[in-house]
């Protein structure tokens, strides 16, 4: 039941990979996220070289986001205008991120960058999500009225030039913040192999204050463009995309995602967010832990010389 992966140059148990793809797909469908942040650590744990894991699963994110975008587009829940601005930023970010990752790999610091980004971003987002959703659950249990949030955007959003109208999102703001947000997500997608939805969605909701109905669809649209770009760049610059690995993951992933999406309607949004926040936080801590625990082997091979 083992299959040899031609680019990763290791042999893995393929039914296990299909199951893994299905499990991550299920989680991603359930929570409406790409699931990349879960996949990369597990692949690395299975013995796949980190650079191959990060690059190959970007194409897995393309597939799961495509099926998501198609269903959101059917519901007219995508703002393609702001999505295009963000995707433009995403392409730039992917270019920067892949070059940065290449440079870090040569310096032998790619592990550090991956571990630190997981710890910082997943840790922070996980804590925020957990705090916010637990507060909401507590208030509901106590029967309190949810305090009305002030729907005001930060003023600096209006001070910037290049203002554009985004009717579907109900915005008339400068194109710079969405572009910058896209760039940031693009860099993360290259370094962490994630779509960046976990950063994009809160930022679009709480900073840009887009209409909630179009946030997820639009972020998925931006994620497709960014991860497609990342995949092509990783393949072109680093030759680290394993098509066999990503295809196996896809097979399980797309099926799992559909079941996850069906099940998600049965839970309350804040409960889902609380569980997701916990998962995000745990993954972040797990990946960051290696920075603080004395390693059993002090030496390690750095990639770069064999290629």
């Amino acid at each position: 039941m083992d299959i040899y992966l031609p680019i990763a140059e290791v042999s893995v148990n393929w039914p296990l990979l299909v199951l893994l793809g299905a499990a991550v797909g299920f989680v991603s469908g359930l929570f409406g996220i790409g699931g990349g942040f879960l996949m990369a650590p597990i692949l690395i744990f299975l013995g796949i070289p980190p650079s191959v894991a990060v690059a190959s699963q970007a194409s897995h994110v393309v597939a799961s986001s495509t099926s998501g975008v198609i269903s959101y587009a059917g519901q007219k829940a995508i703002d393609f205008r702001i999505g295009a601005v963000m995707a433009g930023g995403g392409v730039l970010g992917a270019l920067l991120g892949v070059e940065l990752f290449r440079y870090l790999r040569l310096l032998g610091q790619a592990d550090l960058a991956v571990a630190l980004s997981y710890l910082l971003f997943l840790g922070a987002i996980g804590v925020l999500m957990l705090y916010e959703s637990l507060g909401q659950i507590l208030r509901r249990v106590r029967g309190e009225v949810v305090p009305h949030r002030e729907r005001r955007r930060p003023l600096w959003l209006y001070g910037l030039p290049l203002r554009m109208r985004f009717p579907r999102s109900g915005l008339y703001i400068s194109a710079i913040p969405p572009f910058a947000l896209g760039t940031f997500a693009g860099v993360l997608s290259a370094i962490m192999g994630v779509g960046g939805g976990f950063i994009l969605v809160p930022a679009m909701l709480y900073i840009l204050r887009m209409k909630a109905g179009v946030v997820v669809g639009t972020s998925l649209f931006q994620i497709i463009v960014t991860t497609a770009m990342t995949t092509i760049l990783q393949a072109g610059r680093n030759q680290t995309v394993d098509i066999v690995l990503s295809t196996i993951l896809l097979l399980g992933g797309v099926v799992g995602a559909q079941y996850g999406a069906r099940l998600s309607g049965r839970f309350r949004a804040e409960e889902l967010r609380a569980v997701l926040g916990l998962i995000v936080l745990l993954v972040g801590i797990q990946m960051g832990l290696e920075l603080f625990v004395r390693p059993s082997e002090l030496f390690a091979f750095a990639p770069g010389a064999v290629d």
Partner: protein
Amino acid sequence: MQALPPPPPAVTAPAPDRSASTVDEVRVAAALTDARVMVDSSFRGASIVLYGAVFNPSDTPADVVVVVRGPDAPVRLVKKTRNMGVWLNSRPVLFEGAPGFYMTASTRPLGDIAEFGQLRRLGVGLDHLRINAPEESRTVTRYGVRDVVVSRLGEDYLDWRRAVIRLREAAALYNGDPDGVEFVDEGLFRAEVELPTVAPTGRYFAEVWLFQEGEPVSVSNLTLTVEKVGLERDIYEFAHRRPWSYGILCVVLAAFTGWGASRVFRRG
């Protein structure tokens, strides 16, 4: 009626004298069961048998040492050091001369077969691999002696070198088996070459040494090729020769799968 005896040959040649070399010379001959290892989708490593014969007309016992060396693969090594409570990687150090695969099998521990200097000279044994970091070394004048090679890695140099071997041993790429050569019959021996899944592709060289009283008396050289075949080879070559088209293909495939899945499930 009985068959007639065969007629005597027209010319009777005297039996050939045994040449001096076959009489006195101690010799070793060896072969591999498989000189080509094919890496395809079902590849889970390979086990190849090396077998051979020792011609030893003398009374002195002989030892066999089998050395298999894969294509050279320079490695970059980092060391984790603690800085302000956080474990960070050091600057990578490039080590050259490290083969991608290395194994020895012998009839006795190598140290009992030959002297340290002899093994070092032949490069036989894990301790005698010529792995070094040329970029880290510089020549200095020390105690009045010119051109002394020292390493910037300083005292740790041996630790670094040993780490290369230890990490490769952990990946089953390096191996030294002191009783890996097994005599199955008088003068007939066999040894197993275990290639792990991560074994690099390329040409491998096998040397079969025969030692007598600590001196190498004979050697037999063999080659072995590990290559990717079939779909694996095509994918690997495609990914390396036309990386950009390969990347675009990956994306198209992924997008198509996502689209297909959403079609299938909407109907279902």
